[in-house]
C-alpha cells in the first residue's frame, strides 16, 4: 500500500468524523492538516475514534493493524499529530508486520 492510498484512507476517516462534529469543531481535511495538538480541535476521545476508524478501513483492505503508541499524547513526537505523521506511522507499522 503506498502513501497516497493511506493518505486517502486517513482523509476519508477525518471527513467521516467531521460529519458528526459542530461547524466550529471541524478538523481540516487536507494532506498537511494537524490532527491532534494545539492546532487541532480534536480531543483524546475524538482521536481514539478517528484512529479506530482508520484501523477498520485498513482492516477492510486486508491490513490488520492497531494504532497504539506510547507517544500518542506528545505534542511534538506523537505519530498522530498530523496527516503526514500518521501516514508515515502507518507505513512503519505495515513494514514491521
Amino acid at each position, binding site marked *: 500500500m503506498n502513501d497516497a492510498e493511506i493518505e486517502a484512507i486517513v482523509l476519508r476517516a477525518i471527513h467521516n468524523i467531521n460529519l458528526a462534529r459542530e461547524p466550529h469543531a471541524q478538523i481540516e481535511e487536507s494532506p498537511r492538516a494537524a490532527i491532534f495538538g494545539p492546532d487541532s480541535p480534536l480531543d*483524546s*476521545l475524538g482521536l481514539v*475514534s478517528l484512529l*479506530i476508524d482508520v484501523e477498520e478501513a485498513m*482492516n477492510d483492505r486486508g491490513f490488520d493493524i*492497531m494504532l*497504539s503508541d506510547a507517544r500518542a499524547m506528545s505534542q511534538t513526537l506523537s505519530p498522530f499529530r498530523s496527516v503526514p505523521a500518521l501516514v508515515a506511522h502507518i507505513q512503519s507499522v505495515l513494514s514491521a508486520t
Partner: protein
Amino acid sequence: MTANRHVLITGVSRGIGAHLVRHYLAQHDTVVGCARGAAPLQHERYTHVQADVTNEGAVTKLCRDIRSRLGRLDVLINNAGIAGMNPVALTPMASARDIVTTNLLGTFLMTHAAIRLLRRSNAGRIVNFTTVAVPLRLDGEAIYASSKSAVETFTRIVAREVAGFGITCNAVGPSPIKTRLTAGVPAAKMERLISQQAIARWAEPDDVTNVIDFFLRPASAMVTGQIVYLGGAG
C-alpha cells in the same frame, strides 16, 4: 440491548467463568468464551477460543475473529485471573509477575482490543473482576489484592475514557465462593475471612451474576466506574 447480546467472557474453563457462560446462554445471548483450557460446554450459540489473555497476538486475533463473525461486541467480562496466597517474604518474583500480568495486564489487553468492537454496540458494557481481599486487606494476599486494586483504578479511569462511546465500565468484587480455588485454603482461614463481612456467609455464583446483570441492564447506562463488593465487605 436486551436479548441476543454478543458477550465475550474470559477465564471460562471452570468456576465463575463457566457459570457465566451458562447464565448468558440461558438468556439467549451469543457467547464467546476465552480460556487457556478446554470449553466448559458445547452449545450452538457458544464459541470457545483457547487463548491466553496475556498474549497480545492471541487477543488481537480473538477480537479480529469476533469482528468478522459477529460484527460487534455488547459485553466484555474480564473474569480471567489468578490468585496467590503467600506472605510477601515467601513470594517468588515469578509468582508475583504472573499474578500482576494476568490480572492487570490481561484485563488491559482484552479491554484495549475490545473497545473497538464495543464501540459498535448501542450500549457497550465492560465488567471487570476485583475481590473483597482489597477492602479486607487480607494477610497473605498482598500481591493478589494489589493487582486487583490496580484493576479497580483501571476500571474507574476506563469508565471515563469510554463514556463518550456509550460504554460503561464497572467491577464486581466477589466474596468467597466454594470453588476449586477456595478448596485449597484451610477452612478456619476461610471462616475468619467470611466473619469479617457484613453478611457472613459463603457467596453463590448467582450472587455474582446478579451484580453483573445489574451492570448490563439498559437502564444502568448511568452506572459506570463503580466497584460493588459482595457481602458488604467494602
